[in-house]
Structure formats: C-alpha cells, structure tokens
C-alpha cells in the first residue's frame, strides 16, 4: 500500500463554505446567481449610451456643454457604487471552527440541563441586554455560532451576515454592514441619474419638436423613446427604494428588522441601536467607520491530500464537509504508475471537485433547490412587469403598509424574508409565488441541526495557516 502525500498552497477563498462565487483570485465576492446583476448593468449602461449618443450632442450645442459632463460624472459614480456593492464582502461572519463550536455546544448543554427523552430541546437562544433592552440572540445551526445582534443568515449565500439588510439580486450580493452605504449611494445616485436623463430627454424632445415637429424628432432620435420608457418605470421603483432606505437610515433600522417588525409595536422592544436623533443615526450609518473584512479570502493555507493505492475513493483530507459530498473520486492508481503520474491524476479530479462547488452547488440536493428557485424566481419577474425595477420599490412599500403580498414573486422580498420565515408562519406569503417555497424548505434546515454532531469532525480539520496578505 503506497501512500502519496501532496501538499499545495491554496488561497483560503477556495475552501470557504457558503454559496458565494469568487473572482480575481478572491478579490471579488458575489452571490451565485448573477443574471439579474448583468441585467442591471446592461440597463444602466445601455440607457446611458443611448443618452450620450442621441441627446448629448444636441444638448451640448443648444443648451450647455455641462449637461453631458455632469451626466458622465454621475454615470461613473453609479457604476462605481454598483460594482463596490456587488463585489465587496457584505460582512460575512466566518463559521465557527470545531473547537469553538464544541465550546458553545457545551455551554448550551450546561444552560439547558437534562432534557427528558422524547421531549424537544428548548430553542437555542441567548438573551443579552443592549442599552437596557433585552435582545435575543439566535443560534445558527449552519454556522454553529450565536449570531451577533443584527446579524442574520442569508439562505441564498448560505452565510451569516453582520447587520444583514437584505439579499439584493439586482446587485448580485447581500447587503450588510460593510456595503450598506455603497448600496444606499448606488440607489441615491441612480435615482439622480434617472431623473436627470428623464428630464433632459423631455427637454431635448421639446426643444427639437419646436424646430422640426414631434414625429420627426422621434424619427431622428429613436433612442429617446426607449430611454424615456426605461427611465419612467425605473424612476418609481428606484426613487421609492431610496426613500425607503432613507427612512430606515434615519431610524437606524435594517430592512430585515423592518420586515420582521422587530422594533415596532407596543409590546415589543424599542430599537436599542437608535440614537433617537435622526441626524445621529444618519451620521452613524453613512459616516461611520469602514469595517474591514473578517473573511480572509486571499490568505494562503496548506492543503494536504493523501492518497492510498488500496482505497478506491478518498476525498482530500482537508476539504470542507461540503466538498466531500461531490461525486468526484480519486482514481485508482496501479502500482506501476510513478509518483509523478499519480500526482497529475490526483490534481485533475481535485480541480473538478472545486469548480462545481463554486458554481453549481456542492451536493445534488443543493443544486436541485437552487436551480428551480432561479427559474421560478426569474420567470414571474420577466413576465409580469414591464420593467424589472418596478418590483424593487413595490416590495418595501407593500411591507410598510403591511398588506398581504399581492404583488408577484419579486425576488428582493423573497430573499429579504428568508430569515423571517423561520419565525413567522405567515400564511399569505406562503401562497403567493413559487420560489418562497424553496426558501421555506431551506429555512427548516436552519432550525434542525443540519450536520451530525460535532463529535465527528474531519481528521485534521484545523489547518495550519500561513499568514498571507489579508485583503
């Protein structure tokens, strides 16, 4: 029985659990489904290109050259904010290492005492007092931690995110502590850009119509019609969304807390994070410190893979439980192969096992649940509204007036309410769109212990970490 030990250095992002995709060697971090993000990009770039092509030459000459200049500045700001929001770590909390998880389990057992056989264990909740209010911290079965206050688990990205606001498919990422201000700046600047383009489209059409007539104007600049259409529908949704988030910021609340109604109602706890002063709240959210990422994506770590000729399938020893469920197995190598050949053949299946984890899902079950969600979630969106962006603002507005979800399956709401669905058995929501059903099936996963008890960790789960340049 010959054993071959191969050690190679990998970046930590390759081994991170969760359903994120990484690009540029760990510098860029996004959710798995990026289709809607590409649509957002296309709409913004497309509409602005039409504006620069059709309206700007005329307006620069007949009105002022500052019109296109300001439009360009605003356009670059919007794109920069969008990319910042989409590509940055929203504030993901790394999962507990085995020792920490065991320590927490021990504390829970000590606190709960002996549970009689047949009886369900009490829910894992820790009460903390924050600014003289009692706040309950829930235990996350996936990440094996007690979630810090305001953190929530995003079922789409499968991560706990600090100060979780919502998962936004338009930016292809969660919105959390680290990227909330970029998200807000994006919606604000996009509102301004939309209003700007809409206004100058009208001005341009009016000015040209005076000379040449309305129909001739439209014939000469067909792009105007398309722009006006896109801007008109975008206006309502994006401006509404900006207004909603301005309201949330002034109260120092997150969308998640607003949906769950954490701080509303007389019997409930008052928001312990609010400074009771509008300006102070805005100041803290928008001008507070910029938190660095605690997820070390670009650090290096050793990855040992041992291979024995006798066994048919042996997954890499240091891989996550997630990647161990991939179907690829190490090939059976006959004794006549040299160690070099063995190394090459091991390297090939290893590569196969990593890319599916990032793109498709690490287990058939996850793949099955994620793809229907994508299909069902996206088709209602495309069919029912003339502009996808309508849904962005309609969802918060509906929630504010707390009417049942009569709007179609708009995705921001689905993702936003994925965590509240653990607690509220709100029946109106269950009936509406098909995709929440997938979300619901994922939430019970969180309630019940997902993985086998901690007594069976991987053989050498704790990797020796070489400190690389942290991002």
């Amino acid at each position, binding site marked *: 029985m010959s054993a071959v030990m191969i050690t190679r250095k990998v970046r930590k992002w390759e081994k991170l659990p969760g359903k994120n995709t990484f690009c540029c060697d760990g510098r860029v971090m996004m959710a798995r489904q990026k289709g809607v993000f590409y649509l957002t990009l296309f709409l913004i770039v497309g509409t602005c290109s039409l504006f620069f092509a059709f309206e700007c030459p005329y307006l620069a000459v007949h009105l002022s050259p500052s019109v296109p200049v300001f439009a360009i500045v605003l356009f*670059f*700001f919007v794109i*920069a*904010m969008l990319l*910042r929001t989409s590509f940055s770590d929203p504030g993901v*909390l*790394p999962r*507990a*290492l*085995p*020792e*920490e998880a*065991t*320590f927490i389990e*021990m504390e829970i057992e000590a606190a709960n005492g002996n549970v009689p056989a047949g009886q369900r264990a009490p829910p894992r909740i820790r009460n*903390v*007092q*924050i*600014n003289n209010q009692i*706040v309950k*911290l829930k235990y996350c079965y996936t990440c094996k*931690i007690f979630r*810090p*206050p*305001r953190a929530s688990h995003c079922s789409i990205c499968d991560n706990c995110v600090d*100060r979780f606001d919502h998962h936004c498919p338009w930016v292809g990422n969660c919105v959390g502590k680290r990227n909330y*201000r*970029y998200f807000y*700046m994006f919606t604000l600047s996009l509102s301004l850009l939309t209003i700007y383009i809409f206004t100058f489209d009208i001005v341009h059409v009016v000015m040209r119509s005076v000379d040449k007539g309305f129909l001739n104007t439209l014939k000469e600049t067909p792009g105007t019609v398309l722009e006006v259409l896109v801007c008109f529908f975008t206006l309502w949704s994006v401006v509404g969304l900006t207004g909603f988030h301005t309201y949330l910021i002034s109260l120092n609340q997150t969308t998640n807390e607003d949906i769950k109604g954490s701080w509303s109602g007389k019997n409930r706890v008052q928001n*312990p*994070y609010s400074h009771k002063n509008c300006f102070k709240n805005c*100041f*803290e959210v*928008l*001008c*507070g*410190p*910029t*938190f*660095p990422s*605690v*997820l*070390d994506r670009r650090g290096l770590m050793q990855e040992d893979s041992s291979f024995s000729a006798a066994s048919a399938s042996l997954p890499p020893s240091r891989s996550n439980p997630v990647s161990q469920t991939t179907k690829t197995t190490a090939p059976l190598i006959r004794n006549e192969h040299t160690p070099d050949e063995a190394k090459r053949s091991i390297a090939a299946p290893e590569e196969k096992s990593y890319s599916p984890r990032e793109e498709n899902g690490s287990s058939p079950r996850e793949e099955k649940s994620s793809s229907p969600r994508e299909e069902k979630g996206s088709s209602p969106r495309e069919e029912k509204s003339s502009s996808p962006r309508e849904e962005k603002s309609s969802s918060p507005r509906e929630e504010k007036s707390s009417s049942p979800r009569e709007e179609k399956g708009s995705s921001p709401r689905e993702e936003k309410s994925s965590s509240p669905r653990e607690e509220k058995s709100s029946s109106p929501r269950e009936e509406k769109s098909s995709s929440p059903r997938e979300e619901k099936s994922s939430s019970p996963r969180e309630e019940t212990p997902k993985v086998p008890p*901690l007594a069976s*960790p991987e053989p*050498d*789960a*704790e990797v*020796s*970490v070489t400190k690389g340049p942290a991002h």
Partner: protein
Amino acid sequence: MAREFHNLQELRHNASLVTKVFVQRDYTEGTVCRFQAKFPSELDNRIERTLLEETVKTLNSYYVEAEKIGGQSYLEGCLACATAYIVFLCMETRYEKVLKKISGYIHEQNEKIYAPRGLLLTDPVERGMRVLEISVFEDRGSGSSSPSSSMSSAGSSAR
C-alpha cells in the same frame, strides 16, 4: 505554580494543545466590538486574573478607538465618497490601521506574558471578531496535562 520558560516558537511547534478557552463578546453597549471582562474559570491556575483583564481592557479600548464616530471618520467618509470610494483601493482605512496595532499588541502580549505561562492568544480578527481565543498548552512545569477533560479529545489534535 511551577513555571517553565516557554518561548513562543517552542509553544507553537512543540507543546501539545490541551484545550481552548473563548472569551465572548460583550453586547451590552450595542454592536460595538467589545469583549467580556469576565475571567474564564479554566484559566484560574494558569494566569493571574489582573493580567488577562488588563489585556482585554486594552483590546477594548483599541476597538473603541477604531470604531469612534467623530471628525476623523466623517472626513474619511466624505473624502472617500467624493472619490467614489476609489481612494480606499490605495489608502488604508483607520480601522485597518488600528487592527494592525492590535495585532502587534497581541503578539507582544503573547511573547511577554502568555507564552511563558503556556497560553496563546489568537487575534479576534482571525475568528470573525466573535471571540478572543486562548489556547491552553500543556504546562510542562506542573506535569499535568488537562484541567478540563471533555475538551481534550477535540483539543488534542496536533497543531
């Protein structure tokens, strides 16, 4: 308490890990990063109470400095916003500077205070700012290997 001089390198490479103790976050003042000053009972015979409390207090003061919302953070935020946050690609934020100071402080504390007692602090940043992890190594001086038994099976995996 019999003590043998443990060098930090020696500790990491040779000594065997007995258990890990976790100092949890203190949320009484909100979501600001702050660790509990409560002394873990597992460390009763390994280190003086005041030393650990002093370390935790100093760490807390560093985090307060990093997360302070005042003139400097406001200026940094405004400047960054004006440049569409591109300036963050070149410049280090104040929080990152303080985290570097904390890392240096923890290393210094490990060398001077904790390693000689067979303990090792892990920077909270490596644990997602959730806990302050204290690794307890075998105390060669006393000869005994484990104060708390149930952790040793998980803890004895060689580092």
